[in-house]
């Protein structure tokens, strides 16, 4: 069966006064129903821009978008990049739903949560207001809000951050979407709440058999929930692999850096965490060659200074594992070994 979402050669850029911001640069990935794809990268690497393009949420007049984001619906494929805006709008909330980083500001402060959930429901369902409220309560219950029947009439400010994110999830699920995009759903929450929300997302994915795209800047959280991972750097996917592959045989120095900067139980307590030195480049003027080169500790291993001149192509070691780096497999084995822990 075809994956539910296929993103192919997606480019998104914004013309600004300072220059063109190339936020998504030749992005390709796919995700099937029942599968979770994590998109990982530092803040500003283009994760949100990429997924907003899939949802058709960019202002088309002020954004340059090309490529494809194909939803394989039961009725046939639709490309949300080229389909008419009205067609894409009618897929939002029904076939594809999205939740956002900050649940504090993502809900309308003036309407009760019941009103906001019912509004989404009644877009795609005929039925009375009472039916909508019943469905809202059902979902609030499902996402673990105690006393849902009573709380449905309350307003966003009466909920804690974690509870609001649950409300957002309930609202996103109200029309049984096939694809759920979660854009850093736990970044704004307390650590203890974070794992509860991730757990909830995993449960809901099973319940609704959804394709899930989970965006995060924290490679640490994806281990428990993701099947596959895309690592983004400066607008490009630099590595793409199954979760175990990525953890144990990372192919890109940036992924290695990310892995070294998260606490790992299997490495013992005395291992110091190492943040990747330096800053990501400006998306308006990317360095020549590999975008990661200014921060890369291994570019000297590549002959002829190619890292500074040639943009590395996506090299697909296997169909499921690809990376953009000039290093050879034997060099990588050496690097992984000396980094410790990875084999």
């Amino acid at each position, binding site marked *: 069966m075809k994956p539910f979402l296929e993103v192919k050669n997606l480019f998104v850029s914004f013309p600004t006064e300072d220059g063109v911001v190339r936020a998504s640069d030749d992005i390709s990935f796919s995700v099937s129903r029942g599968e979770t794809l994590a998109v990982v990268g530092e803040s500003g690497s283009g994760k949100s821009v990429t997924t907003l393009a899939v949802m058709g949420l960019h202002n088309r007049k002020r954004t340059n978008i090309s490529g494809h984001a194909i939803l394989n619906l039961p009725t046939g494929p639709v490309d949300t990049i080229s389909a008419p805006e009205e067609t894409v709008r009618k897929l939002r909330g029904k076939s594809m*739903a999205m939740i956002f980083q900050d649940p504090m500001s993502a809900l309308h402060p003036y309407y009760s949560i019941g009103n906001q959930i019912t509004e989404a429901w009644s877009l795609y369902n005929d039925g009375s207001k009472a039916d909508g409220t019943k469905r809202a309560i059902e979902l609030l219950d499902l996402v673990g809000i105690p006393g849902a029947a009573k709380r449905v009439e309350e307003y966003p400010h009466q909920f804690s951050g974690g509870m609001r994110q649950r409300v957002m999830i309930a609202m996103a699920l109200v029309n049984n979407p096939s694809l759920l995009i979660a854009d850093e759903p736990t970044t704004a929450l307390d650590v203890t709440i974070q794992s509860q929300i991730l757990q909830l997302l995993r449960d809901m994915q099973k319940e609704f058999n959804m394709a899930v795209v989970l965006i995060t800047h924290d490679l640490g959280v994806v281990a428990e929930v993701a099947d596959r991972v895309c690592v983004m750097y400066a607008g490009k996917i630099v590595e793409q692999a199954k979760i175990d592959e990525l953890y144990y045989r990372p192919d890109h120095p940036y992924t290695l850096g990310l892995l070294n900067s998260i606490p790992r139980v299997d490495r013992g307590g005395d291992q110091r965490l190492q943040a990747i030195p330096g800053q990501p480049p400006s998306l308006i003027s990317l360095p020549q060659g590999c975008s990661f080169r200014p921060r890369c500790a291994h570019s000297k291993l590549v002959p002829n200074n190619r890292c500074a001149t040639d943009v590395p192509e996506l090299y697909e070691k296997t169909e499921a594992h690809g990376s953009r780096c000039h290093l050879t497999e034997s060099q990588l084995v050496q690097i992984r070994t000396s980094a410790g822990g990875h084999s």
Partner: protein
Amino acid sequence: MLKFLAKRLTATVVVIGLISISVFLIFSYLPMDPAALTCGKACNPVVIAANRHRLGLDVSVPVQYGRFVKGLFVDRTWGEGAAKFSCPAPGFGYSFNRHECVTQLIKEAFPVTFSLAIGSFILWMLLGISFGIVAARKQGKWQDKAATAFVVAGVSLPVFVTALLTLLAASKLGLVNPIEFGRWVSPFTDPIGWLKTFYLPWIVLALFSSASYTRFTRSNVIETSSEDYIRTARAKGLSEKVILRKHTLRAALAPLLTLAGIDFAVLLGGAIFTETIFNLPGLGRLSINAVLTDYDLPVILATTMLAATLVVVMNLIVDVLYAYLDPRVRVG
């Protein structure tokens, strides 16, 4: 909500009491002497003293205030014997210049000012808000630039200039009938005559006031449009029309309520320039005449208190409405 209301209502009564005391004190200690002003040709200290007694100014200021307050609730009488006269409650005193109870004067002037205020208010809200929305939606386009020009003209031209220019243009076009000019007719007996009297001053006040509402609406709509919850609304699949109507405008226009309420209340207190230029016998003209020509203390006192009370009461109404609109400020 009830507790909130009770608290606000008490505060409102206290504020109005304080305002009345301040106004009373200010006018009591001004260096003019109404007893001397109403004294007439054959003026001597004896007549002035008699006058002072007749006007009730020969007692201490607190006693005067007490009588004034009493007069609000029960009928009040001045003078003795044949010269005796009284004003029924609620009374704001007696105008010795106009030989009329102040309440009666206000009763006559208020409908004029109210007509002026309500018409221009509706007009300016409609103009201001719709221009603001269009400007926000067409940011940077010609519609936006036209709205900006309108705002600049509106806020930089003083209202009497707009009023005079409008009047000039209207009379050149033969739209002004000098006999009917500024004639008060009730909208219930002669709706067409009422419209004829008021449409020009409505336009003048609306042009003047809608400018700031255009600017306010525009910036609020633009600001609200970039809120996260608008993106959420879009992600749900709502149409742009519903997003604008239900989500953006609700949040963008709620803050306008406070401004609109106060502006309307101030206008209800009398529009001095507009009423004077358009010859309308409203509260604004009543006050300005009382101050400039007559030094008619009871009238000044009453109109000032009325204006202040309107603002305070409107503030209360606006707060209650706002609490209804924005659940975050609802208490209890």
